[in-house]
């Protein structure tokens, strides 16, 4: 049985705001038929202020789907629509003191129902662009579709790269076989029929920048380093983290890891990935270290 928090149990056994809402003027129906979860969220919105006066739900789903729905209605009551749209699936999970990784999609469904209901109220079309695949990495709740998309978009070739980009495989490592299978599949589709796929060691990135042959000036070097850091920041920010340059001392690049990145068990993997990018961009071997490793000045 799942390890549900007391709050999840409490919201499942005693769901709040369940059942139809007669005066609803915004209704969102979303679901994932394969996963067996479907949710109808009903909002009663005051037209002048756009404040959510009441919210009800009906859910076909498991314990955490019902608990997520119940939590969502409690969270958004009294909010304006604009504020409600800022509620993320992580907020729903946090409200419930966390969900097992396999169940995070229940909170995603809640967030989607909210978007759909608000779109319905405003007379807009809401279309869902979120596709869900089989769960690969149970440590970080990363599914196959997500890994495949990231592998495709970034021309990834190794499990280490996938871990850097998605975190998948960065925990217990049990899913590495699954990640390798996705890599092989994408590689096969990249090569196309009749073509021979390149050996694993050779990245299939013809347009990748060639390492500069001439030695960079210090200003050029810093600019390159900043460029690399800027390129990884959106990824880290997605996980509520961030990074900035602290100092460059010879071949050692010191960075501040901020937000969720600081103290994260994935810190080494994050730095390793940034280091790999630095080496490629600068065309020389460098070391990326956390700012805490900086030599203390006398």
């Amino acid at each position, binding site marked *: *049985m799942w390890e549900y928090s007391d709050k999840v149990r409490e919201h*499942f*056994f005693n769901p709040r705001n*369940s059942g139809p809402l007669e005066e609803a003027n915004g209704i969102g129906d979303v679901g*994932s038929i394969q*996963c067996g979860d479907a949710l109808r969220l009903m909002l009663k919105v005051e037209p002048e202020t756009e404040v959510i006066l009441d919210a009800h739900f009906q859910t*076909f789903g498991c314990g955490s789907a019902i608990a997520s729905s119940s939590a969502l209605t409690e969270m958004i009551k009294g909010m304006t629509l604009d504020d409600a749209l800022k509620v993320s699936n992580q907020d729903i999970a946090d409200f419930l003191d966390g969900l097992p990784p396999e169940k995070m999609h229940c909170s995603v469904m809640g967030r989607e129902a909210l978007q759909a209901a608000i779109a319905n109220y405003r007379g807009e079309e809401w279309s869902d662009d979120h596709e869900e695949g089989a769960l690969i990495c149970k440590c970080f709740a990363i599914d196959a579709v997500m890994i495949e998309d990231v592998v495709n978009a970034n021309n990834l070739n190794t499990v280490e790269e996938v871990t850097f980009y998605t975190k998948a495989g960065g925990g217990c490592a049990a899913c590495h076989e699954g990640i390798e299978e996705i890599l092989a599949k994408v590689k096969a589709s990249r090569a196309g029929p009749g073509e021979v796929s390149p050996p694993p060691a050779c990245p299939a990135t013809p347009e990748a920048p060639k390492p500069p042959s001439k030695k960079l000036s210090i200003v050029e070097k810093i600019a390159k380093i900043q460029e690399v850091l800027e390129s990884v920041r959106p990824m880290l920010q997605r996980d509520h983290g961030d990074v900035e340059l602290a100092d460059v001392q010879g071949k050692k690049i010191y960075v501040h890891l901020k937000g969720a990145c600081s103290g994260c068990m994935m810190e080494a993997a994050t730095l390793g990935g940034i280091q790999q990018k630095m080496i490629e961009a600068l065309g020389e071997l460098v070391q990326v270290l956390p700012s805490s490793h900086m030599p203390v000045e006398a």
Partner: protein
Amino acid sequence: MEPTYLDNNATTRCDPAVVEAMLPFFTEHFGNASSIHAFGSEVGKALKKARAQVQALLGAEHDSEIIFTSCGTESDSTAILSALKAQPERNTVITTNVEHPAILTLCEWLEKEGYIVHKLKVDKKGRLDMDEYKSLLQDNVAIVSVMWANNETGTIFPVEEMAALASAKGIMFHTDAVQAVGKIPIDLKNTKIDMLSLSGHKLHAPKGIGVLYLRRGCRFRPLLRGGHQERGRRAGTENSASIVGLGMACELAMNKMEIENTEVKRLRDKLEQGILSQITHCFPTGDVSNRLPNTSNIAFEYIEGEAILLLLNKMGIAASSGSACTSGSLEPSHVMRAMGIPYTAAHGTIRFSLSVYNTEAEIDRVIEAVPPIVAQLRKLSPYWTDKGPAANPEAAFAPTYA
């Protein structure tokens, strides 16, 4: 109140007599059966007795046809991989699409390795198409592996007939009988079955012990090589305490076979009828006229299985579900999918599996507990109104699916 355990197809409690038989093999009879001294020979005698007890339950002709393994999964893997290794000129496996993952996941891997796997389909009641099966029995088939009884629905497959058909074409036949052994009579010497897997913990023996029955004369290649244990067919020091426990459990199962097929069956039928008569929009799945005496699998429409289980669990009742959410996968049970059960029902399937330890009072309590739980969840369901299911459920609630 004592909890009610109705999940005996998942695992069973060890019979107290089994535990008692095992205990000396952790202490005074700790020897290695291979040793020449008295410590070893005591254990050797106990293993011989256990082998005979298993042989009797399976109706095997020779006790040397019993190979002790670590579990049903090991027995399944050993059987299929052995058949492929021993007959390199044959590259095809025939199985069904409702097998246990111990077979299906292995077969998926074999496909990646280049082997051909034919999975027989089932109809709405979970029955095989024998004409399809006959048409697939070609010279390139190394082995047929078909479960004796389905773990989710209890549906029994005609494995004796299927083994005879395979044998007539010179094809090996294996059956995963993990759910059948101990629940229905088996007499292997009068069948053409070449290999059979059983698992101790499904019949009140401990976890971590299984058996592969291997018909004398069937070509074989071991999975584990090493010492000469099990006549070199399964290396590794014998799990003597568990083997002794399994032997005792087999003897008890022989004695209780009659009760299993009368009293347990009666309680199962009472439970099923009690639920079906009180609740609308639910139905039993599988081939109800031809199934294990202890299993009832009921699909409750418009609600989800995990939610049902959590509420049952709160009342001290243990069962299991074919819903996606209980397995951590995204798909509902492959068995329900194979039978064409619609998603809105497949996600709400609950399996009740009884044992000889269940009592009439327990069954009465479950019959009383289930209807309010189903009503409570249906009240939350967007497919349901206070008058029953939405007039046209599919149209009344047609969510945007991811």
